[in-house]
């Protein structure tokens, strides 16, 4: 992975789409449209890898040799961490995801590649991935009732840490996005909470 001598590989820019363990055919269908694929190609991405989970809609595979976007997909993979590491942009669902442990691993072994883009959504994992410094598009699943997760996505989008899209507007979001304008997300700090708890319990301040 990432051999310096191989210039062809260096130019490989992967878009990783993940729906986690949920079923989100609307997102898979949306990225499989010509509009979205053309837009991604225009933005300089060369590969599209889709993790489609329990969905039933199979996108069309393509090897990309004719200069079009190379498309590949799989349902689940134990090595999702590898896909994340090599991805330049990740388009994710805003539901639940079960691969947090993999992302946790990337963080603990410090294999963070800052140039790449990524995103998995679940309040815990979105921050873990944002902290990898990978640009991220979060796609909101409108089929879920009381989707309070979109609250967070919208707030973070307002603060320019990520892009928030709907399956129908994904095409527009990709064409309008400027990855450079995203602001890095600074890790949170638990010191204020700890301070308040300690003071409340009568422990001396230090």
């Amino acid at each position: 992975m990432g051999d310096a001598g191989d210039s062809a590989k260096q130019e490989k820019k992967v878009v990783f789409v993940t729906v986690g363990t949920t079923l989100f055919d609307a997102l898979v269908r949306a990225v499989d449209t010509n509009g979205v694929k053309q837009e991604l190609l225009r933005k300089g991405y060369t590969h599209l890898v889709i993790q489609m989970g329990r969905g039933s809609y199979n996108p069309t595979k393509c090897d990309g040799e004719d200069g079009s976007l190379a498309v590949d997909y799989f349902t689940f993979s134990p090595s999702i961490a590898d896909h994340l590491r090599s991805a330049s942009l990740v388009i994710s669902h805003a539901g639940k995801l079960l691969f947090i442990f993999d992302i946790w691993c990337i963080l603990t072994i410090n294999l963070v590649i800052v140039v790449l883009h990524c995103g998995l959504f679940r309040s815990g994992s979105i921050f873990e991935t944002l902290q990898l410094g990978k640009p991220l598009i979060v796609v909101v699943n409108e089929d879920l009732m009381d989707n309070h997760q979109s609250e967070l996505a919208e707030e973070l989008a307002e603060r320019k840490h990520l892009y928030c899209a709907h399956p129908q507007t994904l095409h527009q979001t990709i064409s309008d996005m400027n990855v450079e304008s995203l602001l890095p997300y600074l890790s949170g700090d638990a010191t204020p909470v700890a301070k308040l708890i300690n003071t409340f319990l009568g422990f001396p301040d230090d």
Partner: protein
Amino acid sequence: MENQHDDNCSLFTPSIITVTVSAVLIAITRVFYILCQSGKPLYPSKSPKPLSTLIVLGSGGHTAEMINVLNVLLLKDRFCPRFYVAAGTDNMSLQKAHLLEENVFNLNGGKGGSTQFLQIYRSREVGQSYITSIGTTFLALVHALWLMIRIRPQVVLCNGPGTCVPLCVIAFLFKVVGVRWSSVFYVESIARVRKLSLSGLLLYKLRIADQFFVQWPQLQRKYPRAHYVGCLM
């Protein structure tokens, strides 16, 4: 005969009513007294002793947030012994707590207080029918009560979701009955930007949480008794 019977009744009823009314009044007064005392900080003693602490781990993101808080909080040997509780179906959370405790143990140069890892029944699994959930909720409550009687924590740390509510309510009842005075801290999840979660709302409205923390300023403006502490993730 009938008259006499009536007389007996009238002799008894007022006293029963008086007893019940006064019992209820005492209970209400006690609850109000506890509610008034609840939000107040403990006064520092000359040498504050470590406090037994119950840490309720939610799941996934909730656990990750709690671990972040504990990473700072456990730097000093103030929360001892520690009891970690997670839902019976959630193995990941306790694994993460184990990992954290190992780090704390190493940081403290190999000495550490006693730590216990416990699992609790969940009142309702995702997708479980409402009829069977009456039974499981009852079972979960009994189990929570049993755990709380055994632990009797002085500090309860929780950040949702639902698992922590029965434990917090029992902690509050312990204060009312006088079994154990405890301080309950609730940190609302970072995912809640504009509205509190149901567990958060309950603990806030019923004033069961002694201190209530939120991670977004707009939420603090809506719930003025909460403390804004910035993002934890």
